[in-house]
């Protein structure tokens, strides 16, 4: 440090005295310094003013969004009653179609159905772990399979019907057998009757 002091000047300057600020001024400044140091801790206390609304508003927004998504997903689900069974005609093709649906339905519902996006299915499955009473892709297939099984129980297989016609022929009930065979051909127009069975069910000339 370059000292530009002149000894005589410095000595005379010191003789001017050593004035001090009044003690009241000291106390005021120190009190202000302590207050400022305390305010530094302000972020540790609960937020005040506008900031205290941030968390409640954010929580309310999240809850509202969750409820809206849930309601939307519920509205997107098809009802079990809305599943239309296939028409009763064409038993072979219906059976084939049901078999095909059984195999294709899960994939179609997962990959192709625009009305049931996968994310909605996922959300729904999470909310409803037991969806048997409700309709979903799997439930829909199961319902169709059950429907098919019930109808299968009341409808005879073509072979069974042909055997019953052959039995009528053996019993000599020719007219009844003719009517049954005609009904069979009407119901199963594409069914090719084996040669052996054909001899048994047709009227002998």
């Amino acid at each position: 440090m370059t000292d530009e002091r002149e000894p005589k000047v410095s000595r005379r300057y010191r003789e001017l005295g050593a004035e001090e600020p009044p003690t009241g001024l000291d106390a005021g400044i120190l009190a202000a310094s302590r207050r400022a140091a305390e305010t530094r801790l302000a972020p540790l206390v609960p937020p005040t003013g506008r900031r205290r609304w941030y968390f409640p508003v954010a929580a309310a927004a999240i809850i509202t969004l969750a409820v809206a998504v849930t309601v939307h997903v519920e509205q997107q689900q098809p009802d079990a009653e809305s599943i239309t069974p296939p028409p009763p005609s064409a038993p072979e093709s219906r059976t084939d179609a049901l078999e095909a649906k059984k195999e294709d339905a899960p994939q179609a519902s997962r990959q192709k159905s625009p009305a049931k996006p996968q994310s909605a299915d996922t959300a729904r499955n999470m909310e409803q772990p037991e969806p048997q009473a409700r309709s979903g892709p799997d439930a829909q297939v199961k319902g169709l399979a059950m429907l098919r099984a019930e109808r299968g129980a009341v409808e005879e297989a073509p072979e069974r019907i042909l055997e019953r016609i052959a039995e009528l022929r053996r019993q000599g009930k020719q007219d009844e057998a003719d009517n049954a065979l005609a009904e069979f051909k009407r119901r199963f127009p594409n069914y090719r009757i084996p040669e052996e069975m054909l001899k048994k069910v047709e009227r002998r000339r």
Partner: protein
Amino acid sequence: MEAPDEQLMLAYRDGNAAAFETLYLRHRGRLFRFVLRSVKSRATAEELFQEIWMRVIEARERYAPQARFTTWLYTIAHHRMVDHWRRRGLSLVELDEQDPPGDSPDPARQLEAREALARFAQALEALPVAQREAFLLHEEAGLSIAEIAAATGSNAEAAKSRLRYAVAKLKAAVEDD
């Protein structure tokens, strides 16, 4: 060993009020005399003194020990003094060229002017603001030429020149005794 000023100010910045008290007690006298002998009115000096410390408190979170704390403190004091002189109608250029308008002469001080000390005091009061500031920063606050330049926002040559002019005038007043 006493903690350095810079360490105390950093501690206060981090919330240690006791550190500020130590710092304040260490500098209060010299800063008060620097202000008092710059403005001559005690009431004005007390007001300015308090404002300077309030600015130190307000600026605590921006404090970084890039220089001595003393230089930083007297930089704040200088800016406050410039504001004071501006309110009294002096420009920065005039600080170097004109004597500041003093308070009305005190009859008691005129009487004491016959004595050497009073003559010295008058010589000090008669210095241009910038020269007196340079002298007080050097003599009272203990700043070097470079630190005076930093605190007053000038260059080292200007600070040295002001200080030399001030010392020369005061020396002449002393030698007149």
